[in-house]
C-alpha cells in the first residue's frame, strides 16, 4: 500500500511538470502544492490508520478488463473527429477564449488572464467552488472530529517532549524556514494578479507551513498556534468575505460580483474586488486544509489512545 501511495505522489509531480510544458503555469502551481503534497500526506495518514496490509485479489478481473477495453475503444473511436493537438482553429479557441485573451487587459487591467477569468468573469463559478471546499471541510470535521480529552493531550505532549533530541536538527531547520514559508504564501496571495498564483495556491502553501509545524512539534503545539475554533471561524469567514463583496456590489447598483461599481474607476474597482475575493478564497482554502489535517491526525491519535486503553 505504501508503494501505491508513493507512486501516486510521483504521478502528481510528473503531471505538474507536464502542465508547465503545456503553458498552464497556474494549474502547475496548484497541482504541485496539492496533488504532490497534501493529497499524498492525507493518503499516507489514512494508510497508517487503516493498516498497510493488502491481502485481497482483484475480483472479476476479466469482466472489468473487457468493460475497460470496450469503453476505451469507443472513446478512441470518438477522438477521430477531434481537432488536432495544438491547432489554433479548434472550437475551444473560437468562442469566449479570444475575448478573455485580448480584452481582459483593458476591461480588468490584470496581466494574469487566469486570475481575471477566475475572479471576475467567472466569479460566480469560483464562489461555488469555494462553497464546495467549505462543505467538504465541514464533512471531514463531522466524520472525524473527536472530543478532546485533556489526559490524551498530556500524554501526547510528553511523547513530543521526549522526541526533542531525536528531531533536533529537523526542528531547528524547520523553525528557520516557517517564517519564510508564510511570507512566501503572502507573496503568492498578493502577486496573483501579475504572475502565477492566487488565493487557492497561497492557501495551500500557508496550510503546508502549519502542517509542517504540526508534524514536527506535535498537534498540540500547532493547536496552540492556531486553535481549532479559530480555523473553523476563518473558513466560514472566507466564504462570507466572498459573498459580501458580491452583495456590496449589488448595493452599489451593479449586479452580483460586478466589481466595476466598487470604486469610482472601473479598473480600480476590479482590482479591489479581485484582491478581496482572492483573500476570501485564500482564507477558506488555508483553513479547510488545516481543518482536514487536524481532523485526520487528531483521529489517529484518538485511535492510538483507545488502543492503549484496550491493551
Amino acid at each position, binding site marked *: 500500500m505504501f508503494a501505491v501511495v508513493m507512486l501516486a505522489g510521483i504521478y502528481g509531480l510528473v503531471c505538474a511538470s507536464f502542465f508547465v510544458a503545456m503553458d498552464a503555469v497556474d494549474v502547475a502551481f496548484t497541482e504541485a502544492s496539492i496533488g504532490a503534497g497534501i493529497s499524498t500526506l492525507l493518503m499516507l495518514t489514512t494508510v497508517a490508520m487503516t493498516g498497510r496490509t493488502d491481502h485481497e485479489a482483484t475480483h472479476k478481473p476479466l469482466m472489468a478488463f473487457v468493460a475497460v477495453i470496450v469503453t476505451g475503444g469507443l472513446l478512441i473511436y470518438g477522438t477521430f473527429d477531434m481537432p488536432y493537438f495544438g491547432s489554433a482553429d479548434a472550437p475551444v479557441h473560437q468562442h469566449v477564449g479570444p475575448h478573455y485573451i485580448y480584452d481582459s487587459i483593458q476591461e480588468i487591467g490584470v496581466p494574469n488572464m487566469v486570475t481575471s477569468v477566475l475572479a471576475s468573469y467567472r466569479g460566480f463559478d469560483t464562489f461555488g467552488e469555494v462553497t464546495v471546499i467549505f462543505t467538504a471541510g465541514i464533512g471531514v470535521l463531522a466524520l472525524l472530529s473527536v472530543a478532546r480529552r485533556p489526559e490524551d493531550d498530556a500524554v501526547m505532549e510528553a511523547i513530543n517532549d521526549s522526541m526533542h533530541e531525536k528531531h533536533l536538527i*529537523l526542528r531547528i531547520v524547520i523553525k528557520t524556514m516557517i517564517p519564510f514559508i508564510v511570507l512566501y504564501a503572502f507573496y503568492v496571495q498578493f502577486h496573483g494578479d501579475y504572475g502565477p498564483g492566487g488565493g487557492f495556491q497561497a492557501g495551500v502553501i500557508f496550510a503546508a507551513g502549519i502542517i509542517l509545524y504540526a508534524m514536527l512539534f506535535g498537534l498540540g503545539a500547532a493547536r496552540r498556534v492556531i486553535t481549532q475554533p479559530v480555523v473553523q471561524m476563518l473558513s466560514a469567514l472566507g466564504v462570507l468575505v466572498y459573498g459580501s463583496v458580491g452583495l456590496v456590489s449589488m448595493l452599489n447598483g451593479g449586479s452580483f460580483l460586478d466589481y466595476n461599481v466598487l470604486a469610482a474607476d472601473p479598473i480600480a474597482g476590479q482590482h479591489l474586488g479581485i484582491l478581496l475575493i482572492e483573500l476570501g478564497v485564500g482564507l477558506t482554502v488555508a483553513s479547510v486544509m488545516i481543518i482536514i489535517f487536524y481532523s485526520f491526525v487528531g483521529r489517529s491519535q484518538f485511535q492510538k489512545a483507545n488502543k492503549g486503553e484496550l491493551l
Partner: protein
Amino acid sequence: MDTVLTLLSSFCLLFGSFLCLSGGVGILRFPDFYTRMHAVGVTDTLAAAMILIGLMLQNPDLLVIIKLMMILLMTLFISPAASHALGQAAVLNKLQPLINMNINPLEEDTSAGDKSSKS
C-alpha cells in the same frame, strides 16, 4: 565579458548535469539503501547548485536572479535536512546495511546525524 559568462555558465550546467547523472546511476546501481543514500545525498545539493548558478549567469534580469537564489537557498537548507531525516529514520528502524555490521540505534544515532548533515 560575454563570452566569459557564457563559458562559465556552460561549464556550470555541464558539471551539474554530470553530477546529476552520476547520482542517478548511483541510485540505480548501488547495492543497498545506505550506499544509495550516499550517492544521492552527496551529488544532489551540488548538482542543483551548479545548475542554478549556470542559469543565473545566463540571465541579466535581476528579479529572475533573486528568485533563483531563493531556490538555491531553499535547496541548501532542505536537501541535507531531508537526507539527514531519511538516514536517521532508517537507522532508528534498524534497516540493516549489506555489509555485516549490526546497527544499534542508540550508538549510531549521533554519527549518522553528522554524516548526512555534512554531505
